């Protein structure tokens, strides 16, 4: 197989990096930010770190039906600024994205602004320094930033979701640059998310969600469990696009809810009951759609069809904050080879 490598000559390292970025940008390979150019040597290093053959196809990505080989994943991971040891996480995430039950094609081509959200569980978080505590969804951590970015570059270059050409997202989203974190299992008094889904605590996993938004919820401290959950639920109005919820429950609320004796199931149940609004608030068509999907009764429309659609994960650092993500259709894969 011939590889489309090219030679770039420059008088200095700075010029070389600039030339490589300009070329990649002209080719449509980037998300707009600078990239690290992939070389024969770095690709070989990343493939080796994956523990797999470079030609192995991990998934076929729409809309172009591009084969996500280990080598293609490596090239995009390098461009994104990843370390070689991140490869098993990215490969597992591509496996999850490629699952036929995951709605990747609408994410890739639709006029909406959905993005994949990656949640990492297990020992791999510590080994790769994947942030799950203070600032876990923001800048500052290489693994969080670059693994999420590698996913975007893979969707762009392998899947072919060229903005405005194949991807018709009217506004797109800042969440499409990178959207991932680990679960703060060390602050979780209940079972971690991957254990809830049938994996062992010592397994390392990545879960991919179809995500619509990011909503930070502030307040609700020291007011009792019911008021705290009411505060959270009022930030989770019924919405178009399905009933899935991913609640990243912050450390303060985790501790107070646990100390008041609530289980994770109690939280899911109470949020399901509270996250409802009168049907009269909404357009008739929306009410009809929600009811047909099992998310409403005669008087109210619900955020989700049942407690199971509300995924509760512990993340972030101290403070009376939580994050609500309208996210569903989770696909979880074990991360192998760390």
């Amino acid at each position, binding site marked *: 197989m011939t590889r489309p490598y090219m030679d770039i000559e420059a008088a200095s390292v700075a010029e070389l990096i600039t030339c490589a970025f300009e070329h990649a940008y*002209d*080719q*449509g390979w980037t998300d707009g930010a600078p990239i690290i150019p992939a070389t024969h040597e770095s690709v070989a290093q990343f493939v080796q770190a994956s523990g797999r053959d470079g030609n192995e196809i991990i998934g076929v990505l*729409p*809309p*172009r*039906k591009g084969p996500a080989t280990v080598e293609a994943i490596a090239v995009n991971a390098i461009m994104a600024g990843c370390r070689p040891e991140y490869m098993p996480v990215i490969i597992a995430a591509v496996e999850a994205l490629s699952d036929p039950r995951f709605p990747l094609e609408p994410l890739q*081509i639709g006029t909406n602004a959905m993005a994949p959200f990656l949640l990492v569980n297990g020992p791999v978080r510590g080994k790769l320094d994947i942030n799950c505590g203070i600032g876990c969804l923001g800048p500052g951590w290489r693994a969080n930033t670059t693994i999420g970015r590698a996913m975007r570059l893979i969707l762009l270059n392998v899947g072919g979701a*060229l*903005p*405005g*050409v*194949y991807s*018709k997202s009217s506004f797109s989203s800042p969440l499409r640059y990178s959207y991932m974190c680990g679960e703060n299992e060390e602050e979780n008094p209940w079972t971690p998310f991957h254990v809830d889904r049938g994996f062992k605590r010592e397994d390392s996993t990545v879960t991919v969600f179809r995500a619509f938004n990011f909503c930070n919820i502030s307040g609700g401290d020291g007011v009792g469990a019911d008021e705290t959950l009411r505060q959270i639920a009022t930030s989770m109005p019924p919405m178009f696009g399905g009933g899935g919820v991913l609640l990243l429950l912050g450390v303060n609320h985790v501790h107070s809810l646990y100390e008041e004796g609530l289980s994770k199931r109690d939280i899911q149940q109470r949020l399901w009951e509270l996250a409802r609004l009168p049907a009269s608030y909404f357009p008739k068509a929306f009410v009809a759609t929600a009811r047909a999907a099992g998310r409403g009764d005669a008087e109210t429309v619900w955020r989700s069809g049942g407690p199971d659609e509300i995924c509760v994960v512990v993340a972030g650092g101290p403070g009376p904050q939580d994050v609500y993500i309208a996210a569903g259709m989770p696909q979880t894969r074990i991360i192998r080879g760390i």
Partner: protein
Amino acid sequence: MIATDTFAKFGRRMASTQGFPYIVIAETKNPIRELDFDALRARVEAMLPTIIDGLTLKPGEIERRSRDMAKEQIRPRGIVRSSIPV
């Protein structure tokens, strides 16, 4: 395929990913949502010759007629991203 002009090229791109790069597309100007019955009927009648072509021409003839145009629509030369419909 029936599509408005805003989405026709995109429609061909998506059809090509399913193995149908030379699909016949009956196009009409976007938008159509606000058209009344008579205006909509006029649009449909204007598209009828294309629809009949799509239903009656042999595949080889459809390919011959649309090959060059389809190639450009599926992979527009020099465009790797665009903030306007292409």
